[in-house]
């Protein structure tokens, strides 16, 4: 079984998603600049630190641990940073699969695949459009044969 990695451009998408929040905090810091106030230093230091941790450590680790594979009866997704997870979804449990893409993802020609099961769902980000379609076709429930009412 070979684990596949999503497109590395998803890392850029995650980093760019951080920009609006960073811009907002930057604006607040500039607007209420008070160099002698400890609260200002605390606030500014916090958001810069959090942004740097996300940009330099969290997102790269998130990409490093993210991978997926299709086995003969399950779909596997590896993900997580602090807590890493292997999530296995049996084919028969998938109710339907959907392909989603935000404007930012479309700019980089990638998308996400979302699998819906009874009471749960999982999302696989950073897929090429062709890979996403192929996975959707493999994982979507097939048309059932005529049922035997006694089974």
């Amino acid at each position, binding site marked *: 079984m070979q684990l596949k990695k999503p497109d590395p451009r998803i890392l850029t998408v995650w980093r760019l998603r951080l920009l609006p929040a960073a811009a907002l905090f930057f604006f607040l810091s500039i607007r209420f600049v008070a160099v002698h106030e400890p609260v200002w230093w605390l606030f500014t230091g916090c958001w810069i630190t959090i942004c740097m941790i996300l940009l330099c450590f969290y997102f790269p680790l998130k990409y490093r641990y993210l991978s997926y594979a299709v086995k003969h009866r399950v779909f596997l997704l590896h993900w997580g940073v602090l*807590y890493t997870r*292997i999530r*296995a979804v*049996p084919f028969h449990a998938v109710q339907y699969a959907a392909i989603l893409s935000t404007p930012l993802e479309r700019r980089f020609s990638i998308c996400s695949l979302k699998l819906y099961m*009874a009471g*749960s769902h999982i999302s696989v980000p950073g897929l090429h459009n062709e890979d996403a379609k192929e996975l959707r076709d493999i994982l979507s429930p097939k048309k059932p044969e005529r049922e035997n*009412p*006694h089974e």
Partner: protein
Amino acid sequence: MNKPDSLRRTHPFSIFLYLYRFLFLLMIPLLRSFFSALNGGLAQWFAGAWIDVLLVLFLFLISTLKWMNFKYNMDSNEFYLTYGILIRHKLRIPMHRISTLSALSSVWLHPLRITKIRIDTAARGVKKADFSFYVRQSEAYRILELRSEPLQNQNGVPNEYRPGIWSIVLLSLFTSNTFPGIVMVSTFVSQAGKLLGEELSVLLRHTFEETARKIAFGLPPIAAAAALFLFIGWFVAFLVNLLQTKDLLTTRTTHTLRVSGGILMRKRYSLRLSEISFVDLRQSLLTRLLRLYSVYLNAIGFGKEQADIAAIVPFSRKTRVLSHLSLLLPEFVPSDRTLRPGRGAFLKFLLWPAVYCALIPVSAAFAMRLFPLWAEVIRFVAFMAAAPAVWYFGVCMLDFVSSGLSKEENYYTIRYSSGFYLHTVVVSWQKITVIDLRQSIFQRRSKKCDVSVLTRAEGRTHHKLRAFYLEECLSLFGLGDNG
């Protein structure tokens, strides 16, 4: 959609059920003022209450129309239903799509020979039955007979199980929940005053206080009263449970499992075997020490309501339980444990329960220093809080030694604890929705993981295990490279 030739109406009793939500708002004050008006001034009463009277008549009319438009037909192939006044619904459910078909008859409906039919499918809500309606008893028997099949047997012995009275008593003893009993007793005492006069309510309260004072041997009176209240609540719940599960009988046919029982409410269920999600052999700390097991079923439409039967095999010894299970549901017999928690996993199981046990006396000592006048009360509260903490510690300790995973053909046996109960769950691969293997930073180093199995059941059920070796779990579930 072609409708069947003959449609039936439900029992006219249904009219009162459609009314009940709204009628009680008006009927009681209306009746009270009517009786007082009979003493004189009936015309004045009507002049003031004519809107209420009109509203009651209107609600009665709507309920009757609802009943007249609710029609069904049920045969061995399908269930056809049409209902609604302004917005008409027509639907057709194939019989093989009905997961559970139930017939329930409450004790106060026995004289009227009315039975409630409940139909559950895999669709729609979890908390309520998909469809329910009231019919005559003879019609209920006819409907249940539609799913009748020849009994299965092994070497001439029918595949059925009828537990003895002591198993039922033990089941009620260990599963009675104090809270519903307290609610019933509180409701009875408060309503006794309204319905039968304040004297009865006062008498009941006085009797309770006297009894609490008599049994308070060295205890604060308030503690004795609380203990007495809890005991009465538990005893009422125990009696109700006993009457709900008496005469329990479980029978297996080719494609269905039939369960019946109860005196307060006579219940008969017909479950499709393919709709059984998992079987749960459940134990508390006490029943584990007594080596007693009970078997619960999780299936769509089964064990949904408070009054439903959920256990098909009440408390018995392990060999007997396995013997009955192999008779009724041989696919769901638990397999022997193959995977166990990793070495050194005791911290994972016992750390937090030990912290809770230690925290309570420390907090109590600290509180008694801060509030010395409340020392007695704090000591009592700490004692009451320590009991469940120590109980929980005991459950986690047993979980540590018995937790496990195994597989037999396509059925997985999962042994774990949840809250104050130990579970041995047997589930088919077909009913597993998601398998989650989670590792923390520390577990990555020791190559262990926590396992969570999500099953497609009545609602969503998580089965969580702790501190298993990752490679072993991947191999068991067929998720590894060689799977």
